[in-house]
């Protein structure tokens, strides 16, 4: 249990998707003009990361990595399909996003109307594929660890996007030099936020 909390806190603050790895930057910059839309996208990302990372964990460990198919019988022990992982992961993500969209539409129409347009966008958000690829690279021991990593990364993204949206709402009232206006100042503010998040690096977990 302690290990799970550990991984969660690590992926929210220390290995933050946006500030430490720059994943999901495109939607981070495009959808952060107001806090309410940022909130919607953030929740959708937590949702999808929390589901796709454990699912891809199962696929990775029971089908793709070297020797993973041994449970099918002795003939499959030597099979190594790891070169297929990109295409499998992206297919899983695209279909999970579709599934999540349909489930939410059926059972939680209120949530659907607020998340609606963001869910399809998420299939090509690099934070989602990045989550699965980092899960593969870091070799988590079991599915609970993978799930807590997925959720933690989602929460990290949520914090980042809501934070920058709040700052951008305020920055509209200040007199930014012309060439820096809009995109430029957003980059620099994100850099400064990243420096703030770096102060978590010293924490020993």
């Amino acid at each position, binding site marked *: 249990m302690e290990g799970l909390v550990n991984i969660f806190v690590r992926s929210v603050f220390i290995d933050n998707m946006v500030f*430490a790895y720059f994943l999901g930057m*495109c939607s981070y910059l495009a959808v952060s003009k107001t806090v309410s839309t940022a909130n919607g996208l953030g929740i959708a990302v937590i949702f999808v990361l929390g589901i796709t990372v454990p699912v891809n964990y199962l696929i990775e460990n029971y089908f793709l990595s070297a020797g993973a198919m041994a449970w099918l019988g002795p003939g499959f022990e030597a099979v190594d399909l790891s*070169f297929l992982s*990109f295409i499998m992961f*992206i297919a899983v993500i*695209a279909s999970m996003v579709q599934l999540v969209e349909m489930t939410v539409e059926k059972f939680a129409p209120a949530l659907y109307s607020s998340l609606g347009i963001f869910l399809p966008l998420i299939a090509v958000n*690099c934070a989602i594929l990045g989550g699965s690829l980092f899960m593969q690279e870091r070799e988590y021991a079991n599915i609970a660890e993978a799930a807590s990593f997925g959720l933690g990364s989602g929460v990290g993204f949520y914090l980042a996007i809501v934070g920058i949206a709040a700052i951008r709402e305020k920055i509209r009232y200040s007199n930014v030099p012309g060439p820096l206006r809009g995109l*430029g100042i957003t*980059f620099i503010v994100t850099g*400064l936020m990243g420096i703030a998040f770096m102060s978590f690096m010293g924490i020993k977990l």
Partner: protein
Amino acid sequence: MSKTEREPMFSAKNIKLLSTPLNDENPITVQVLGICSALAVTVKLEPAVVLAVAVVAVMGSANVIISVLRKTIPNRIRIIVQLVVIASLVILVDQVLKAFFYDVSRQLSVFVGLIITNCIIMGRLEAFALGNRIWPSFLDGVGNAAGYGWILIVVAFFRELLGSGTVWDYPVMEKLGLFNIGYENNGFMILPPMALITVGVIIWVQRSRNRKLIESK
């Protein structure tokens, strides 16, 4: 097709396809696409150049393939078709890198895979290759990838020079003798946040030279 209808290979229009993404329509600083991978691999020049070349290769060929297939792809499933084409090309690039440039491939780690979700590739397929002939699509792909690549290389150049005092692992600052007169490497440049600030400064410089890009309030 008669000869008079054919456009020359490098007509003014085609050259323009290649050159606007370098400045006026730059994928990173103007269209805000493909930022994710742009920032994470720019600590050193070498991985940045390798990633830039990989993106040029993937984007040029993806645009050509989609342009060839554009009349046969049903509209409803085009996103999946595009993802499959891109993912297959990226697998090819990844295997080539692992076979011939293993060290660089280790440094790039997940970012080769992330070319798949690099929004600039999907964006150009949707916006250009689905509606245009093969040769212009190829030029558009290469042009946009090059516009992406040069930002990557400039950022990596400054971060490596100021952060580690080297250029392509050649110790420039040491050879210039700057360490003897009290110069120190700025270790801060190696850390992730400085990539964002460097891109911010590039945007600043670019927009103050090219004033029509300035955003209105």
